[in-house]
């Protein structure tokens, strides 16, 4: 299966949110990394068929996905950013409602709903009203509903918002297990979300893709641009204010080890180190205008 974004564009008035992006997505997790306002959510909405592109196409195995209508949507699982819910529905009600929308019979919908609530750790709260859930629980419910129909294309927009570290790990494992033969698009501005599970990373900025490759390939773009500087503690703060600092670690001797992203050595004695995805992110967005 191939999901192709063919010069996909979305313009709101004079503002271009997504600008002629093209990519072919295959089974596996594709991480869509970008700062807020980079155009990720707009792109996700177009893929989910809830926002019409100004131009360009989404193609599924060469066919115009949007003209496939119900057939295309039957393959989709979507978790929108900041998704809503019916306050008076219980988690199970909501799941069964979504299962009905996804074409399940009442009995199958109930069984599948319970199975997924179990998987996301909400089985004990299945009959509680969603309005009483914490942010993390709501997010887990959102993930569960997205996976109800075992979608061939799973679109997750900022799925880990509100999740604590333990829940993030559980989510990552869930996605990794799920994505073996499915196209998963995981949009986030949280680097660690994609660092461990993505087979491919698309970095988005200003409505377009500025980087595309495996995590190693993308990270390699930052090679030779990440430095560690050993400085006095008071100097560390000064450096943070005027440089792209990804980390400050204070040593036992009172000095600091400052990790800086820069094209050139930021100071005499700076040592080049292996970059990480977080370094790459900072490199890509160090002068980004966040919309």
């Amino acid at each position, binding site marked *: 299966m191939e999901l192709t974004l063919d010069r996909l564009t979305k313009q*709101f008035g004079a503002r271009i949110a997504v600008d002629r992006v093209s990519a072919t997505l295959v089974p596996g997790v594709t991480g869509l990394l970008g700062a807020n306002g980079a155009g990720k959510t*707009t792109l996700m*909405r177009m893929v*989910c*068929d*809830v*926002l*019409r592109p100004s131009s360009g196409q989404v193609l599924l195995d060469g066919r115009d996905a949007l003209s496939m*209508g*119900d057939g295309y*949507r*039957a393959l*989709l699982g*979507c*978790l*929108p950013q*900041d*998704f*809503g*819910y*019916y*306050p*008076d529905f219980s988690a199970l009600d909501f799941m069964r*409602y*979504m299962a*009905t*929308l*996804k*074409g399940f019979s*009442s009995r199958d919908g109930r069984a599948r709903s319970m199975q997924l609530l179990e998987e996301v750790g909400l089985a004990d709260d299945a009959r509680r009203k969603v309005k009483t859930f914490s942010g993390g629980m709501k997010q887990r419910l*959102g993930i569960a*509903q997205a996976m109800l*129909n075992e979608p061939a294309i799973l679109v997750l927009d900022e799925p880990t918002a509100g999740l604590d570290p333990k829940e993030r790990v559980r989510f990552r494992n869930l996605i990794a297990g799920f994505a073996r033969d499915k196209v998963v698009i995981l949009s986030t501005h949280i680097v660690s979300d994609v660092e461990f599970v993505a087979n491919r990373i698309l970095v988005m900025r200003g409505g377009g893709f500025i980087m595309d490759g495996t995590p190693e390939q993308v990270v390699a773009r930052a090679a030779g641009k990440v430095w560690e500087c050993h400085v006095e503690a008071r100097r560390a703060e000064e450096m943070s204010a005027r440089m792209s600092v990804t980390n400050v670690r204070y040593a036992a001797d009172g000095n600091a080890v400052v990790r800086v992203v820069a094209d050139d050595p930021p100071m005499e004695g700076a040592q080049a180190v292996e970059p990480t995805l977080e370094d790459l992110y900072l490199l890509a967005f160090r002068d980004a205008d966040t919309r």
Partner: protein
Amino acid sequence: MGTLIKYELRKILGNRAGMVTCLIALALISGMAFMNIATMGTRDVATGEWVEGFAAQDSYRHLEESHAGLLDDARVAEDAATLDRANELVKETPDFYDLPSSEILSRYGLEFWQQTMVVISDNYYPEIVGSLDSTDPRATSLKEGSLARVDATLSDGFDHYFTYSDAEMSYWHGKFDQIRWPAEYGYAGAWKNALDWASFLALAIVALCIALSGVFAGEYQNRIAAVALPTRRGKRSLPAAKVIAALVFATVYWWLCAGAVVGIDVAVCGADGWDLPVQVVFGFDNPYPLTAGQALLAVYGLGYLVALGMAGLTLLLSSKMRSTMPVAVIPMAVVFLGMFALFITPLAKIGSLTPMVGLSNAFARMVSYAAGPVVVDLPTALTMLYACLLVVCVPLAMRVFTRHQVA
């Protein structure tokens, strides 16, 4: 589909503001229908005493029943002669209308009182003799007198708000010609009350529009559309289920309110008079060839169509707007602003097309719309308007929802 409809109905019923409004409206409508009877007051024709509430209703019933029967020319002539005798006595007393009823009773006796009360209170005498002190030429039959009053209305216009064209006059004469004479008279208290109070069912229409305001807009407002639309049934079955659930709710709620009004009236007044001519209810200057029962079914059926049309309009507004508040306000304005339109001469006919005024005037008054030789009366115009609203707005609402852009 059935499961989806159930969920959508559940969402409508879960809209607290909407349900509270519906319950308040139902309580108001039922309460007003009951109070209409409970607060009734009249002079008891048997005793001359002032009676109120159910006793007044009973007294009124006896009064009407005492006159039940076929109003043929002989019967009308006999009643008119009775009235003449009472009239002569009244003329002898210049201050008759200022006398308290106890004084009339003591001065003229119970028999006079009964004759006077019966003939004054009854419905068909104005068609024959006008008021007690009328000097107009007397009609020789009820049909002739009734036609004269129809002509007088057509000449005067709709409360002087507008004039009738020749085509409209011809239309109303044609309707009048279909009435069967001689007419049957009798008691039809329940149907009279139910028809008189049909316009208050516009409150039910407002309430159900408020309850339905969130059908589509609620999905946008609660940010559910982004989850529900990109599903297999999200753009086809879901909007259809929403519409069906909304119309089912409108149907149940309308007939619940209508049933409350009719039920209260029938429980208190009985079901007599179903087959009597509608003229017994609305007066003999009414040109509709219907029975009271047919008129009731027609008005309440028309009200149901109006309710569905307004529900359709609400669904369209709901699909277009992202907040439920304006969706609820606009149908409310349509219902209530129609009453004010009656005070503005050029808008009087348009005002009659709004739910409250429309239900009040349909079959009760001669309101018609003419385009050259083509004339339609108010019930037909209301049927066309609200059927169009329903047929146009519902598919449009579904289309707008299906094409909703989550941005």
